[in-house]
């Protein structure tokens, strides 16, 4: 009997243990991980932490067709989107169809940048717990543990994000290295424009020597990382931006330090010029020769610097594909040659290209401008930038006249201007079809440094110096413009500061077209109001008896009001934060 009692217990306990050993699935999320996993105290390679940094890099823009499918350039007088009827974002940006509460999210990012900045701050806070045993060589040649580079790269990216905010909004709240929680006071005021510029420049100074330097030690693994040269290139742009009229002298609101400096200072142009000059002196043809102008303009955008591209300073690789060709290539091809003609350069841009000898349209005695042969004898960069009627493409002469094979005018889908964008695309002039091409989104290239220098130096001096001229000669020489008998590449001698300013502004426009400079340049120069009094134009080409006849046509009269020099801070942010001051007139 007693045995039976024990047996009952044994069976009972057996069942209890069986019940508790369930074969259910796990009850906690084993596929999820937390901060300690990403910044792991046991991960000596820092694999996860590096992946965290990758995601911060990913926040860098790829602006190829990056604003709702268009280039930001299509919100300037340089181009139009083919999809005007669908009211693409660039069209709304061009026409000013936005308010503080109804913003164009593809370019008016605010929260996204603060999200990226937070990521940087998380990395800075946590990276030192990772016991890195791998090292790198910094810009000064020292071997250091990898976390030093990662921290500096993250700070570079943070400075870049702040600059994006500064361009768009003027002074913004600087949050330092803080990582906020909900319990923190988030009602931060905006810092002044001047504070933000100083912050970005100081950050660059602080990190530049901790970054890698070009040429890279292990390019196969580290190409595309932020380098000292990228940081210094950013510095030239930031200083040029800060010295520009919109913030220096001709601000939107007097006494409002959020939107510019309180008073004009010519010295700011000097800072900008010095930064650019020092870059050129250190790395250019008179320095280490790491950077220079690539011999072939077209190759700049499809060729990695391991492959003989001395112009690249900082860029994002957007893959080896036919994406840009399909999106922007001319209409009228199909299958593997299909192009959707998304970006239509304007007549205004085409007119900005000088003649082959560097003289402006109609001013050259050697190459008189013939309005019925408008593309003959022009600056070669025109053909590198724009596809027009008669251009060679995919082994065909493009017919972009009305109803032509590459501009089917009778349907809703046609080039607004009779042009297509050529820049950035692979060399498919004589190819049968599109093939995979390496496409880069270049954030900084050497040509820009030259132009930054020329502009800043010209503004600083009373009359332009030889240094300024030399820079322009170099750019025009590379472009393939004839030097002319006087070796002046079509530039007049003894130009006044104002004349030179116009030359430099035009040179920026054509050299850097579609690289997202024009949109910001016409703002910082504070010329947008005047500029947009002119309509955006296209070319109407009509074929009569086999001959095309060319006629410039007005396409869009874009208005521009003063407040649009800066974007509105999101209405909701002003609402939530009592200290947040809206930009003027929004």
């Amino acid at each position, binding site marked *: 009997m007693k045995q039976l009692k024990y047996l009952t217990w044994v069976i009972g306990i057996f069942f209890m243990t069986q019940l508790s050993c369930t074969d259910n*699935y*796990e*009850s906690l*999320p*084993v596929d*999820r*991980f*937390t*901060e300690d*996993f*990403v910044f792991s105290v046991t991960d000596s390679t820092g694999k*996860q932490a*590096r*992946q*965290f*940094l*990758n*995601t911060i890099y*990913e926040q*860098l823009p790829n602006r190829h067709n990056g604003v709702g499918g268009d280039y930001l350039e299509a919100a300037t007088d340089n181009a139009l989107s083919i999809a005007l009827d669908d*009211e693409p974002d660039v069209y709304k940006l061009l*026409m000013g*169809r936005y*308010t503080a*509460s109804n913003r164009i999210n593809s370019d008016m990012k605010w*929260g996204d940048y*603060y*999200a990226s900045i*937070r*990521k940087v701050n*998380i990395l800075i806070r946590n990276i030192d717990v990772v016991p890195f045993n791998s090292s790198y060589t910094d810009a000064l040649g020292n071997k250091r543990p990898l976390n030093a580079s990662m921290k500096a790269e993250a700070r570079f990216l943070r400075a870049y994000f702040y600059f994006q905010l500064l361009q768009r909004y003027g002074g913004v*709240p600087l*949050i330092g290295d803080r990582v*906020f929680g*909900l319990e923190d006071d*988030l*009602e931060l005021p905006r810092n002044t424009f001047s504070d933000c510029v100083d912050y970005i420049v100081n950050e660059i100074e602080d990190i530049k020597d901790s970054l890698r330097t070009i040429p890279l030690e292990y*390019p196969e*693994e*580290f*190409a*595309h990382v932020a380098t000292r040269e990228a940081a210094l290139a950013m510095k030239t742009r930031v200083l040029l931006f800060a010295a520009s009229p919109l913030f220096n002298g001709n601000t939107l609101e007097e006494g409002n330090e959020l939107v510019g400096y309180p008073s004009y200072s010519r010295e700011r142009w000097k800072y900008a010029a010095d930064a650019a000059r020092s870059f050129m002196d250190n790395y250019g043809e008179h320095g280490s020769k790491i950077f220079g102008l690539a011999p072939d303009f077209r190759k700049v955008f499809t060729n990695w610097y*391991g492959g003989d591209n001395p112009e690249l300073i900082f860029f994002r*690789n*957007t*893959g*080896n594909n036919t994406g840009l060709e399909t999106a922007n290539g001319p209409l009228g091809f*199909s299958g593997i040659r299909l192009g959707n003609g998304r970006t239509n350069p304007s007549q205004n841009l085409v007119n900005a290209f000088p003649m082959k000898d560097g003289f402006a349209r109609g001013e050259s005695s050697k190459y008189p401008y013939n309005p019925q042969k408008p593309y003959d004898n022009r600056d070669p960069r025109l053909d590198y930038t724009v596809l027009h009627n008669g251009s060679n493409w995919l082994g065909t002469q493009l017919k972009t006249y009305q109803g032509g094979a590459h501009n089917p005018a*009778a*349907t*809703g*889908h046609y080039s607004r201007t009779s042009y297509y964008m050529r820049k950035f695309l692979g060399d498919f002039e004589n190819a049968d079809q599109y093939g995979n091409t390496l496409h880069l989104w270049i954030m900084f290239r050497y040509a820009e440094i030259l132009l930054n220098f020329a502009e800043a130096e010209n503004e600083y001096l009373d009359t332009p110096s030889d240094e300024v001229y030399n820079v322009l000669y170099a750019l025009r020489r590379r472009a393939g413009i004839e030097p002319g008998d006087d070796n002046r590449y079509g530039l007049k001698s003894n130009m006044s500061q104002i004349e030179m300013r116009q030359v430099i502004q035009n040179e920026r426009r054509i050299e850097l077209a579609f690289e997202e400079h024009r949109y910001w340049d016409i703002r910082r120069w504070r010329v947008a109001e005047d500029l947009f009094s002119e309509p955006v134009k296209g070319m109407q080409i009509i074929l009569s008896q086999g001959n095309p006849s060319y006629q410039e046509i007005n396409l869009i009269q*874009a*208005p521009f009001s003063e407040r649009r020099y800066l974007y509105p801070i*999101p*209405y909701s*942010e002003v*609402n*939530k*934060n009592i200290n947040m001051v809206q930009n003027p007139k929004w």
Partner: protein
Amino acid sequence: MKRTIIVLLYLHFIALLVGQNNILKGVVTATDGELLIGVNIKVKDTGRGTITDIDGNFQLAVEPGDHLVLTYIGFKDLEYVVGNQTDVQIQLEPDQTSLDEVVVVGYGKAKRITMTGAVSAVTARELRTVPTSNIQNALYGKLPGFFTQQTSGQPGKDASDFFIRGKSSLNEAGNQPLIIVDDVEYSYDQLSQINVNEIESISILKDASTTAIYGIKGANGVLVVKTRRGMEGKPQINLRMESGVQTPVRTPTFLNAYETASLVNEAYTNDGLQPQFTDDDLQAFKDGSDPYGHPDVNWYEEIFKKIAFQENVNVDISGGTSRLKYFVSTGYFSQNGLVKDFSSANDDINTNYFYRRFNYRTNLDFDITDNLNMRLDVTSRFMNINEPNNMNATGEIYNFAKMRPYSAPFLNPNGSFAYLYDTDSHNPTLNARLANEGYRRTRRNDNNILYGTTWKMDFITEGLSSNVRVAYSNIYENNRFVYRFSDGYPTYHYDPETEIYSINPNGTYAYGTYGIGGGINQSVKDLNIQASMNYARTFSEIHDVSAMLLYNRQSRTTEHTGQKIPENFEGYTTTIGYKYKNKYLIDFNVAYNGSDRFGSDNRFGWFPAVGVGYRISEESFFKNRFSFVQLLKLRASYGLVGSDVAPGGRYLYNQVYEVGDSYYFGDRAQNFSGYREGDLGNAHVTWEKAKKFDVGLDLNIFDNVSFTIDYFYDERYDQLVRRNDTPLLLGIGTAPLNVARTNNRGIDGQLGYQTRVGKVNLNTNLVFSYAKNKVIYKAEAQQKYDWLAETGKPIGQPFGYINIGYYTPEDMVKINGGADVSPAVPNTDIPVQAGDLKYMDLNNDGIINDFDKGAIGMPNLPNTTLGWNIGGNWNGFSLSLLFQGSFNYSFSVVGTGIEPFKSQFQPLHTKRWTLERYQNGEEIEFPRLTSNPATINSAENYMSDFWLIDAWYVRLKTVDFSYQFPKRVLPGFLDSGRIYVNAYNLLTLTNYNKYQQDPEISTNSAGDAYMNQRVFNLGFQVSF
């Protein structure tokens, strides 16, 4: 073998009866001739009795002069005096005011007269007359407190959304009622697939007293479904077949090519552009002289049929012995879509919409011993939904950018397909796409097993029993599509002048093969275990005590999509009820339960509720004075319930890192993957809570009037919403916090009346529901102007501009002349013109912008619904009508549903503003036409009360007319036979003429969902 045993058992039973002296055989029917199953028959003052079997037959040993008492739910009690006959037919009169009405509640049943909670119920008899595939749609207008909205009529996807007592939570998903079928939780999808024929009754539980037992899941009310079970008797086969035609409730009318082209020209002229069409073009459209160069196609009529068919067949067999009872049912439902067949004869690809469903259910009850009962329910549902691949056919037709009446001929003269030549996309015509681009088919298989035992434990103490239930369900859904893209087959543009066919630039010359794709949509397993102890006993016929203690756990595992770990729910529920002389009533219900959706500290909560009732009509002072009152009961309940629906996933309590975006490094474009921070966790996340108060009155008078009314006030707090007042400087998303608070109040009830005029029985029933909510706190940022605030408004309050007519030419003079006082205009590059919609400048700054958007109209869910049922029967004929109405709601149609150049031109557009019409004083119902999509006239950019209309509708929801054949005319093998016709959505009355869409379309959309259907149905039912 089993069957032999059943038959043997049955024979034994008969033999037993035959042994008695006087055997009375009889059949019990309703006054309309329907056989009544399970009527309780007792010989008065004895213990003897029986119930009728599935044929309505009974046999009972009686003595002449015995009084038989027949009782049956929904019918009046009848006392029948036994004469000398041995074969009788007894008729029971229906009683809508029945005092014995028993309704299903959570884990049991309750009598209406002694219930303290707020419950509305409907029997399946009333639902089977509605020719729709799903229960939600059949419940319209039948239950007080039940709010429904049907936003699509697509076969298989036409189930309504429903809410019990409106909405209470700002957390949109947190408003769905809990669905309980045979005490097991079902999902919405599962519910809409249940065959109505399998259902015995449906209740909705509305107040805390009845929902507290579900604790953390009860806050949105509970829909309780009970399925049919077998009755003692010989096998009874019941066959119901019906077929019907569907036709849309509302169809859109669009202008023809000439009218459209004229308006296009007018709009272009308004915009300062060249007209698109010449006078010759217009003439050609008008006289149709050039059908290929200037086509005029009514795409709606070309693509859609007028009618489509549906069919429904149900067979059920039920019966049983005293030991084993069974109910076996199979059903097949088939509903076709309205798209015509354009495919060529040798192409067997069906691209039409359709829905096919096969249901099967076996419910078995087996009394193992006198005290031990076992049940096994097995049910499966197989479903197939078909739709054209990659398109919404109605939406295609509405969309002006995609097609116009003059875009292409229906077919080219040589019979080839055309493409939409003048559009951007160059799509093939819709008939070409439907013929060539394949279908998408969703298949779903839903298997459920429920096993349960009940053990009467009277040997411990009388009235005690225990109950164990295990339910397992498995849902598997996949899709398969056969597709071909629009560039995979040839379409041509035919030029009648040159007679040249040019191929679509996006197309090919040869037909490509179809591609085949598909995958698993979901695979879900759900295991539910329940164990309970129950106690119910009446002491001295005065004290009625009941109690229950229940343990319930549920585990749901999603095994395909998202591969999630199981979601678990666990809890205890206890109820205690006490009734003194069935006069003073009190119920306590407490649940302690939780789900692992929340952190381990915040998983379990207590959910208590109390309900009290007082049957004044039982008091002698009352009885004596008001003898015409059969029931007067006051009741009230108060309690706390919860809702565990958490938006944004499961691990809200924990911040987790996720796989993030990757970046190219290195010279060969190597993709390096990344990690990123997930939303900030909310360590304290917990369930939403609702305090519910309900006070109600039940009244039955004059034996033929019944009345129920409830007032309720709910306070919903700790609602999970994302804070709207956190600056983006935080840099990361946040988990929802338990911060928002709303209240919800209203009344609902019903009034029933029945009478008999001569041989005609008449009954009528009015159901009314009203529920109004208000946001008390939602963590909203301080708005610049009061009228922008959402706090204090109902949930889902629309905001927009307030329309004050049209800009007049006089206004324009002021505006353009810069007059000191001129109407406000928007601050954009598009100048307003005379005939544009004019809006009120709320902040008086002279500019129309977002600050001028105030609360307009009402939320989309009606806050008042009515249902009115009238029925009558005479000599086997019966007729019932159900009117259903919804009031106090708003909706708008935007974009491709109404706006010119986005939508096809509609008759409304002919009533546009033009200077001429304005000066002639003609009625103007639409702003001037413009091809610019961004003007102030756009509903998408400037939502206003011009577009948002306050609507109501009243529908003749169902009509049912049937004839029950008298038994004498039926062939001998048939026990009963009935034919019927019924209709669904027969008539609709609404108050608006701006839109052509159905009043139930989803608001702020193009309203181009598949049209809601009207159904005419013919059927018959036989039993043998």
